[in-house]
């Protein structure tokens, strides 16, 4: 029997939700029939609106999907202005004030405390600037992720931006694909960094090359074809399916042995999502993601059905991948795998990646950065999957002046590794699923670590991903230190805690973390990290093959050090410990209506907002 959510979707779903949304905005919160709340809130997700958690009724999180995290400075300014005007809640956040934007791990934007009556004005402003919330949440094509600097990056296999733009234009607002069994996350990687993180997406296009007979490559672009003795070597992508991290069921996307040229991406992407639409599980939402279908079928059957029922040309077998060049989130010691810092573009200009701690940026700062970018002639802003922001197109002559701007003292191009590597999800501040407080805590962790822990020689990049629950929005399984929200008891009282994992990352050989310390009280996590780094410092071996100027071999990277130990050895390798770190959120933040309110009892909640009627 189809799930209850499928029943609601059968009645009304997709683009038609919008007219109802506008009606409710006009008539007010109370116009939504009480016995239809759940159905409407489920549907509103399709238009990027997610009803905030218990105690915050009538307020919404609004997600704006920016493919590849890419915007113009003008679009960034508009986002900042909307946050400044509409994303203000009843109580300030003690770390971030009120009115801020969250840059997400899927290169989207999230605003909080949005009220129903403001939605038409916000949509008008977004759409006048070619921005939209369409399909940002819900069961359809989500925001497409990939390199924000596609077309500019010197480390590029091919410019994937036209491909991504085409996918975005084709599959957003497309009735054929608007009602899928579950979310559909797509990544397209055109660079050699591996920055699309296709491994953890439902559908991935990974950079590849393949020799193709001359008469076979008629549909591929000539500019990416290189003649060789027995055919032409063509640049394109290998196709992977069924990656994802949620619900303690992490999967790397499976190789379905298909190579496509740029021109074939949209056909194969459409075919794959149509297969998911028709064969995905609509009875049990917990088993609905395509990772479970490919578990059941295996990649060979998946490819066979795709070929026989959904694609009207002969699929090629996979090409040669470029994984050995991947640096993004790879834990390599020879290159830091993110976009932070100053990088030369292929046109001689520079893009500058700025670290945004836990991805949250005040609205005023967003507007200031947009104006700065405009002033320096930038035509592109990028959000990265590490929750940071890029300003592109800075001329060589302007670079020093740009780097001297006051705003870059806070959003730094060369931050301390503990600040640079920190990612956190939304957490109990707004999210129904989260077990623990996340963003403010990660800020406090990062600052404490920076002030109190000597970073060992050999570590220049250190990733801590903090996720409030098993939904894994902060991608905890692919970090040096993986933190997943938990509870434990301390002196008999329940406190917020984390399971700690080690050794995760992507790159040439992707690995999920091993979960090695369970239920560590949140105030003992920084002490654990300090103790673990001390052990690394004592025991990391040097690789004589990687000799440095001082004659010593380079040390193995932290990821290599962890990979050298098995799970049993990692368990108990370091001890959790209380330190000078203080955690103001140890008690059950989920029991509050808002964790930072002076009177935080659920009964003190001002929701639903009277302003909405």
């Amino acid at each position: 029997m189809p799930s209850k959510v499928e029943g609601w979707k059968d009645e009304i779903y997709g683009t038609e939700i919008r007219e109802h949304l506008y009606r409710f905005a006009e008539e007010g919160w109370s116009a939504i029939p009480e016995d239809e709340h759940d159905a409407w809130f489920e549907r509103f997700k399709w238009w990027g609106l997610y009803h905030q958690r218990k105690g915050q009724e009538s307020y919404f999180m609004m997600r704006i999907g920016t493919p590849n995290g890419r915007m113009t400075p003008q679009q960034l300014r508009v986002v900042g202005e909307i946050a400044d005007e509409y994303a203000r809640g009843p109580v300030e956040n003690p770390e971030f004030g009120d009115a801020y934007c969250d840059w997400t791990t899927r290169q989207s934007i999230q605003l909080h405390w949005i009220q129903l009556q403001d939605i038409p004005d916000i949509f008008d402003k977004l759409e006048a600037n070619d921005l939209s919330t369409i399909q940002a949440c819900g069961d359809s094509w989500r925001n497409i992720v990939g390199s924000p600097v596609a077309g500019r990056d010197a480390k590029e296999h091919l410019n994937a931006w036209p491909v991504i733009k085409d996918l975005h234009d084709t599959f957003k607002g497309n009735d054929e694909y608007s009602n899928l069994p579950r979310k559909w996350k797509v990544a397209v990687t055109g660079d050699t960094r591996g920055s699309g993180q296709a491994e953890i997406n439902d559908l991935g296009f990974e950079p590849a090359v393949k020799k193709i007979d001359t008469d076979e490559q008629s549909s591929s672009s000539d500019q990416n074809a290189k003649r060789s003795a027995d055919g032409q070597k063509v640049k394109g992508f290998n196709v992977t399916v069924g990656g994802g991290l949620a619900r303690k069921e992490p999967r790397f996307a499976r190789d379905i042995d298909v190579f496509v040229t740029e021109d074939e991406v949209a056909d194969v992407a459409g075919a794959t999502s149509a297969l998911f639409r028709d064969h995905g599980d609509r009875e049990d939402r917990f088993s609905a993601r395509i990772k479970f279908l490919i578990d059941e079928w295996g990649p060979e059957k998946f490819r066979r059905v795709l070929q026989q029922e959904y694609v009207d040309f002969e699929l090629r077998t996979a090409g040669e991948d470029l994984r050995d060049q991947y640096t993004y989130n790879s834990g390599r010691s020879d290159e830091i795998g993110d976009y932070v810092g100053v990088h030369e573009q292929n046109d001689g200009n520079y893009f500058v990646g700025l670290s945004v701690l836990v991805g949250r940026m005040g609205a005023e700062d967003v507007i200031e950065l947009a104006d700065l970018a405009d002033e320096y002639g930038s035509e592109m802003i990028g959000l990265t999957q590490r929750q940071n922001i890029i300003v592109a197109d800075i001329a060589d002559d302007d670079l020093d002046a740009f780097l001297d701007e006051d705003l870059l003292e806070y959003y730094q191009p060369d931050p301390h590794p503990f600040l640079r590597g920190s990612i956190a999800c939304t957490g109990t501040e707004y999210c129904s699923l989260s077990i623990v407080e996340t963003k403010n805590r990660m800020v406090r962790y990062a600052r404490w670590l920076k002030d109190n822990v000597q970073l060992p020689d050999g570590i220049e990049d250190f990733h801590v991903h903090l996720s409030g629950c098993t939904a894994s929005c902060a991608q905890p399984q692919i970090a040096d230190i993986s933190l997943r929200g938990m509870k434990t008891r301390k002196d008999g009282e329940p406190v917020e805690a984390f399971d700690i994992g080690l050794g995760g990352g992507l790159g040439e050989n992707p690995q999920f973390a091993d979960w090695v310390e369970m239920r560590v009280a949140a105030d003992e996590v920084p002490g654990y990290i300090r103790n673990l780094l001390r052990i690394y410092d004592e025991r990391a071996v040097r690789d004589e093959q990687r000799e440095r100027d001082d004659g010593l071999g380079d040390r193995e990277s932290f990821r290599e050090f962890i990979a050298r130990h098995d799970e049993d050895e990692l368990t108990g390798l370091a001890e959790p410990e209380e330190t000078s770190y203080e955690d103001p959120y140890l008690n059950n933040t989920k029991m509050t209506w808002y964790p930072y309110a002076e009177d935080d009892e659920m009964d003190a909640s001002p929701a639903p907002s009277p302003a909405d009627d």
Partner: protein
Amino acid sequence: MPTSVHQLDDGAWLSVNDAREVNVSDLWWLARQEFCSCAMADFLAEGFVEIGIDHPNVEGRIAGQCIECGESGVTDWLTLGRVVNPEAGRFFAVDPSSVHVPERRRRLASPPE
């Protein structure tokens, strides 16, 4: 008035008559349980997996883990609360921190078609 119950948002909460009534992230004491070998499981609710009604009780199976021993999985059926007078539709939730006894049940969570 029929009582409408379901879990939503990936099992984040129990909805009764379109009101969010029981959340994940609470600790539940489970006695006489087969979830783990602890005498009393100190069970962290991480997600509602199945919801059903055995009038007047609203029941559910919850995914999570015992924070004492670390065993994780899905509980047998737990009473989450009661709708004493379906006409009024008011739901009275149980207190997770009191003691609960999970039960196996043989009937279906939803009636057959």
